[in-house]
């Protein structure tokens, strides 16, 4: 028997034994009773009646942690989704990460690339860019045919095609102000992505985003890998799916483009303060979790 065969046999033995033991430990009678109780619960009819397709279907689009529920389609209706961005994202069930809650950055100033976090004395990564500028283009990049499971190149379909469940849109900002991590020079233009329910209406999105915006961004690796060879340059994603806001005077209003959540409200922050960052913030590991030292 080869080494590979021996390994396979050993793995099979371990796996089978473990799963058999765990299956045997299940109290099937109790589980069946529990199942019947659930069927009789008042929530059960809602589950059967709802029109949403693919319940709990989820997808991480561009590593943004977006949980997606397929946009209900009406028998192949070709109409595109022209709702406000917040409603489109809400339809995707996007929930921003909880990084605004303690102990992580508490607002845009702390999330700035100019803020220096240390963890157990070591400098740690910051978001890549805070940029301010005009939205100069909104283009469809690709679609994904799947809304479940980790997406791969196999799931790629044309943007707005009938097979697309999720569309990836690229928003281009002509940068005129901001700050980059480690004082790197700012790019002239930045492309960042949004994952939206397909089929996407680009014109309404472009109208909504037109004008001057501010965004805290990080470089996304996910699409770079998935779309290898199809991208011209770097692609960015909005930090926590939240830090994109309209510029009003010398301030950015974060939150208006996104569905309300218990973690993210509308936050108005001066551009200069974000560029300056929050200085040094120290974190230490306590009980296995990074914790702020305030």
């Amino acid at each position, binding site marked *: 028997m080869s080494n*590979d065969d021996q*390994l*396979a046999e*050993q*793995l*099979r033995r*371990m*796996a*089978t*034994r*473990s*799963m*058999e033991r*765990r*299956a*045997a430990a*299940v109290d*099937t009678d109790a*589980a*069946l009773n*529990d*199942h019947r109780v*659930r*069927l009789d619960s008042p929530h*059960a009819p809602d*589950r*059967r009646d709802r029109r949403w397709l693919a*319940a*709990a*279907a*989820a997808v*991480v689009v561009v*590593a943004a*942690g977006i*949980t997606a529920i397929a946009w209900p389609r009406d028998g192949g209706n070709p109409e595109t989704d022209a709702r406000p961005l917040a409603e489109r994202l809400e339809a995707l069930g996007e*929930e921003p*990460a*909880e*990084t605004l809650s303690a102990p*992580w950055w508490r607002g845009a100033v702390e999330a700035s690339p100019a803020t220096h*976090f240390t*963890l157990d004395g*070591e*400098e*740690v*990564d*910051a*978001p890549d860019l805070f940029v301010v500028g005009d939205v100069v283009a909104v283009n469809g990049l690709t679609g994904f045919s*799947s809304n*479940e*499971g*980790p997406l*791969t190149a*196999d799931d790629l379909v044309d943007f707005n095609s009938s097979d697309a469940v999720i569309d990836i849109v690229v928003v281009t900002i002509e940068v005129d102000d901001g700050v980059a991590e480690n004082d790197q020079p700012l790019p002239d233009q930045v492309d960042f992505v949004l994952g939206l329910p397909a089929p996407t209406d680009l014109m309404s999105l472009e109208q909504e985003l037109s004008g001057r915006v501010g965004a805290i961004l*990080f470089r996304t690796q996910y699409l770079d890998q998935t779309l290898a060879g199809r991208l011209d340059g770097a692609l960015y994603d909005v930090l*926590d799916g939240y830090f994109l806001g309209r510029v009003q005077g010398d301030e950015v209003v974060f939150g208006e483009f996104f569905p309300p959540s218990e973690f993210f409200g509308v936050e108005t922050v001066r551009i200069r303060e974000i560029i300056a960052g929050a200085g040094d913030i120290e974190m230490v590991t306590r009980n296995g979790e*990074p914790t702020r030292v305030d």
Partner: protein
Amino acid sequence: MTESSFEECFREHFPRLVALGESMTGDSGVAHEFAQEAFIRLHDRWDTVSTYERPEKWLRRVMSNLLIDHHRSRTAERRAVERLANRVLRDEVPDRVEPGEWLELVAVLPARQRLIVSLFYGCDLPISEIFEVLGVSENTVKSSLSKARNTLRAEMEQRHVE
């Protein structure tokens, strides 16, 4: 709907789904919850799914998707931590396993690889069925399986040395 056949199906496959869930999450409570959810969905579609040659295949697919979704939501919470901390945290470590056990061993694998090796070795599914269950390409399954095997081999060798 034939309640007796549904119950039969429940009794036969519920424990296996729980075992699969535990191999992925290391958490019996989470595994039970997702297995229940899978059977609630099966109940809603029993008239159709019961006509399938192998309804358990449908169940495994639902369960796998629930597990991947669960992993994803956990990942979303961890993503910023990883970036901030500039280091990759260990991937969703099962919390109630004995050293040397299968669950502890596969905890070193990324989520999808963990699910694939559990389906392949634990549920004895052929590759052709795994890629149908997970809705990914055959090459993805083969490649994930190969990577997982290499990782597990290295892990086992290291433990043997230690």
